[in-house]
C-alpha cells in the first residue's frame, strides 16, 4: 500500500502542497467569490420579495379603488332611482289630474245630453198628448157626435195616459 510505504518520504510534500492549493482555493474561491455569489442570490431574493410586495400593494390599491367605485356607483344608482321615482310620481299625478278633468267634461256632456234627451222626450210626449187629444176629440165627434172642448179632451187623455 503506497499510502503507508511512501509515508515518510511524501508526508511533507503532501501536506505542503495540499495546504498551498487548498489555501489558494479557500482565499480565491471561498473568500473572494462565494460571498459575492451569495450576495447575488440575496439581492435577487430581495428583489423578488420587493416586487411581490409591490404587486401586493398595487393589488390592494386596486381593490380599494374598486370598492370606492362600487360605493360611488351604488350612490349614483340610488340617486337615479330616486329621480325616476319622482318623475314617475309626477307623471302619475299629472295623468290623474288630466283624467279627472276629462271625466268631468264627459260627465257634464253626458248630463247635457241626458237633459236634451229628457227635454226632447217631454216635448215629444206633449206633442203625443196634443195629437191624442185631437184624435180623441175627432173620435168623440164622429162616434158620439158631441163636440167637446179641446181642454176636456186634453184632460181626459192626460188622465188615461197617467193610468196607462
Amino acid at each position, binding site marked *: *500500500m503506497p499510502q503507508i510505504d511512501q509515508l515518510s518520504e511524501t508526508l511533507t*510534500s503532501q501536506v505542503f502542497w495540499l495546504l498551498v492549493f487548498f489555501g489558494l482555493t479557500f482565499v480565491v474561491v471561498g473568500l473572494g467569490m*462565494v460571498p459575492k455569489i451569495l450576495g447575488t442570490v440575496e439581492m435577487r431574493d430581495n428583489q423578488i420579495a420587493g416586487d411581490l410586495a409591490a404587486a401586493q400593494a398595487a393589488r390592494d390599491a386596486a381593490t380599494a379603488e374598486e370598492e370606492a367605485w362600487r360605493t360611488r356607483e351604488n350612490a349614483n344608482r340610488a340617486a337615479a332611482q330616486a329621480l325616476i321615482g319622482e318623475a314617475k310620481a309626477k307623471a302619475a299625478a299629472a295623468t290623474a289630474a288630466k283624467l279627472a278633468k276629462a271625466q268631468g267634461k264627459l260627465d257634464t256632456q253626458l248630463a247635457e245630453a241626458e237633459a236634451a234627451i229628457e227635454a226632447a222626450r217631454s216635448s215629444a210626449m206633449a206633442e203625443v198628448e196634443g195629437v191624442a187629444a185631437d184624435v180623441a176629440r175627432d173620435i168623440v165627434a164622429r162616434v158620439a157626435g158631441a163636440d167637446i172642448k179641446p181642454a176636456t179632451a186634453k184632460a181626459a187623455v192626460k188622465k188615461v195616459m197617467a193610468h196607462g
Partner: protein
Amino acid sequence: MKQFTIEPLLGSDWQLGDGINIAFTNSALWMAITAVLVWVFVAGGMKRQLVPGRWQMAVETMTGFIDDLLEANVGKAGRKYVPYIFTLFMFILFGNLLGLVPVGLIPGIHAFTFTSHFTATGVLAIMSFSIVLIVGFWKHGFHFFSLFWPANTPVFLAAPISLIELVSFMVRPFSLALRLFVAMMAGHVLLKVLASFVIAGGGAGLGLGVLVGLPSFVLMVAISALEILVAGIQAYVFALLTSLYINDAENLH
C-alpha cells in the same frame, strides 16, 4: 496499487528549511488541477446576473446547498463558515470525481486521486478539527470542556461519560480522515480488481472471457456509477460532519 503511488514530477530535491522535502508530485499536480477546476467552475457563475444562466444557476445551487447545510446545522452563526465549508466540499468533490475520469486512456497519463491518501485527507480533517477547537475555546474559554459533560448527566456518571465523550471527540479527526480515504481507496481497488478479472478472463480464451470477463465488465460499469455517487456522498459527509462539529463549538449546550 500503482495508481496510489506518489511520484515526484518536479524538484525532487526541493526543500523547505532543513530536510523538509516538498517535491512537486503527481499528487500535487492533481490537487492543482482540482483547485483550478473549482476556480473555473465558480468563476463561471460570477456573472452576477439577476436572471441566472445555467452555469450561474449551477454555482448558486452549490453555494446555496452549503449555505442551507450550515443554516440547518449551525443556525445564523453558521453563515461565516460558508467559504470554508464550500471550499472543503468542492475541493473534495472535484478531487474524488477527477480520480474517476478515465484519463488513463491517453497513453502516458495516469489519473491520481489525492483523496485516497490519508496524508491529504488527514490535513483536511485536522484543519476542520482545528477550527472546531479554536472556535470552541475562543467563544467559550475553558467552559468548552463542558462539551464532555452532556446536559442532565448524573454526577456519579460524570467520570465515565466525560471519558467516553473525550475519546469520541478526539477520534473525530481520525474518523473524518479515514472515512474519506477508505471510501476512495476501496472503490478504486475494487475497480482495479474487477479490471484485472476482465483482462485475465479475456486473455484466457473465449470460454472464460464470456464466463468471467463479461460479467466483471458489466459489474465494473455499475460500480463506476456507484463510485460517482460515493464521490459526491463522501464530499457531502465530510462537509456535513465538519458543520456538525462546528455546531458543537458554536452552540455549546
